[in-house]
């Protein structure tokens, strides 16, 4: 019995600590544009949301997709086109991008969930490559140039997004809403079933769950949120290009997750921050970025396999919370 109560106390204390850290992080993000170049933080936030959306699938459902660039980049194209060519307001463009990504996710997920493990990853990769070549050929993406000069417009006709600070807080709001959505899905009755499927798929089937439907639902949700990130990025940077639909982008989001920590809420955010930060730093130095990220990836896999946040949880957070509880 004492063991049981100890564990309960430890959980309660570490949960309190976690919420404290999250609140601190949000405050830091609110203050960030006054100290750091806002465009850079916005880029980080878009990628962090993308990584969180991906984590919903890999970390909480156990599905490794190698085609998430499709949803990120596809939504960016849709949003950019709707805003530029049809003159849609930014919020409508973002929603369209999200919806389009969800639809793409439905198609890709429908085909991929029939297989498991490496085959699942390969099917998503193959479909993502097909989508990439579609984007290369289709006239509306404007090929190698991409859709440039997308107007930021005014949000709901009130907020002028051409003002950098306005844009920043809109992106921060979208990021927080997106991360909250992931958190809510993970900690919901539905999320419970996703976890049980990840833990023991056959057992979930034998309890009567049609696991295919749950996986597909999770896939579509993840795709939609990745789309939200991609569409927002298109508005921030005012362009959508082929870079966002390449397989390297699918790989990058996996790297962000592995680096930060799969299956933790904060891990993907930290991972995305590191990767984006590193790319920005190295972009001016002339040192090839891919070599640096490759090296980091290897170190990560060899030394801290749970990812940075995952290791912190495992090594310090739980014992520290326990110790603090005694005092």
């Amino acid at each position, binding site marked *: 019995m004492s063991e049981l109560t100890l*564990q309960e106390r430890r959980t309660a204390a570490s949960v309190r600590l976690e919420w404290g850290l999250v609140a601190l992080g949000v405050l830091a993000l609110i203050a960030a544009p006054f100290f750091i170049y806002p465009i850079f933080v916005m880029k980080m936030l878009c990628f962090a949301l993308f990584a969180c959306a991906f984590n919903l699938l890999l970390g909480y459902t156990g599905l490794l997709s190698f085609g998430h660039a499709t949803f990120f980049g596809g939504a960016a194209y849709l949003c950019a086109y709707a805003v530029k060519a049809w003159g849609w307001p930014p919020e409508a463009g973002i929603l369209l991008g999200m919806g389009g990504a969800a639809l793409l996710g439905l198609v890709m997920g429908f085909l991929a969930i029939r297989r498991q493990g490496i085959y699942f990853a390969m099917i998503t990769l193959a479909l993502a490559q097909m989508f990439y070549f579609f984007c290369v050929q289709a006239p509306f993406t404007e090929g190698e140039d991409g859709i440039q000069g997308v107007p930021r417009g005014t949000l709901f006709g009130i907020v002028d997004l051409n003002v950098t600070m306005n844009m920043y807080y809109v992106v921060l709001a979208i990021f927080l809403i997106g991360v909250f959505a992931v958190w809510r899905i993970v900690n919901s*009755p539905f999320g419970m079933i996703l976890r049980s499927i990840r833990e023991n798929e056959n057992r979930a089937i034998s309890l009567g769950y049609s696991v295919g439907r749950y996986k597909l639902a999770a896939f579509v949700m993840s795709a939609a949120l990745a789309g939200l990130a991609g569409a927002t990025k298109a508005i921030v940077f005012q362009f959508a290009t082929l870079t966002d639909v390449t397989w390297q982008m699918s790989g990058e989001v996996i790297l962000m997750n592995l680096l930060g920590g799969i299956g933790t809420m904060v891990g993907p955010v930290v991972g995305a921050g590191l990767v984006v930060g590193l790319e920005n730093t190295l972009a001016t130095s002339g040192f090839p970025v891919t070599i640096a990220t490759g090296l980091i990836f290897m170190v990560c896999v060899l030394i801290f396999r749970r990812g940075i946040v995952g290791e912190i949880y495992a090594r310090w957070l739980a014992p520290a919370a326990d110790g603090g509880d005694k005092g």
Partner: protein
Amino acid sequence: MVLSARGLRRDFAGFVAVNSVDLDVHHGKIHALIGPNGAGKTTIFNLLTKFLQPTSGRIELLGTDITRTSPAKVARMGLVRSFQISAIFPHLSVLDNVRVALQRPSGLGFQFWRSLSALDELTPRARELLGIVGLDDAANRLAGDLSYGRKRVLEIATTLALDPKVLLLDEPMAGMGHEDVGTISGIIRSLARDRAVLMVEHNLTVVADLCDWITVMQRGQVLAAGDYATVSQDERVRIAYMGTEHE
């Protein structure tokens, strides 16, 4: 008769794992499937629960043909199985393991917008089930931290949460200590009062003590069937399986 199979056959790339097997499972009875390793017992379980498709033959559950039904659908119809290696969700708490099972009939499965407290309504029933199998003191522990015997008991509690019409138990006693075997026998006996039980079991003392009907398998085929007295007197069975251990 709740579950019946006729002419069940399954080939694996030329190897016939199960061949023309007939099987009837009755309400309120405990039915044992025994036989040496590789006799096809687990394959039959997989065929009956639709985790494998039969090459030929026909399966009926409660009067409905389920030969081509999906495994999840079969489970929803009331045919629930356990696995040879304990099938639990190791990183969920013991209580959550049972609640996941209760969640399916409750219709809460797809509610992704609600908080986890939506599942609180299932907690009393889950605790009740844990009480039945004697796991109430471990409700908040991680299922993966339980001892082997208690994991098997938890699996039975989870299965029970679905209130199945037919219960398929794959070696429920495997790797268990003496007291655990007694506990599980008791649980299985009380379960069988209002449902049908089909179990694969190697422990013949348990089979003799617990089971009303025994089907002996060898090389994918039914060697003999009957109650323990009949089967244990059967000359072929004695030679093939029991003779050496039970003389």
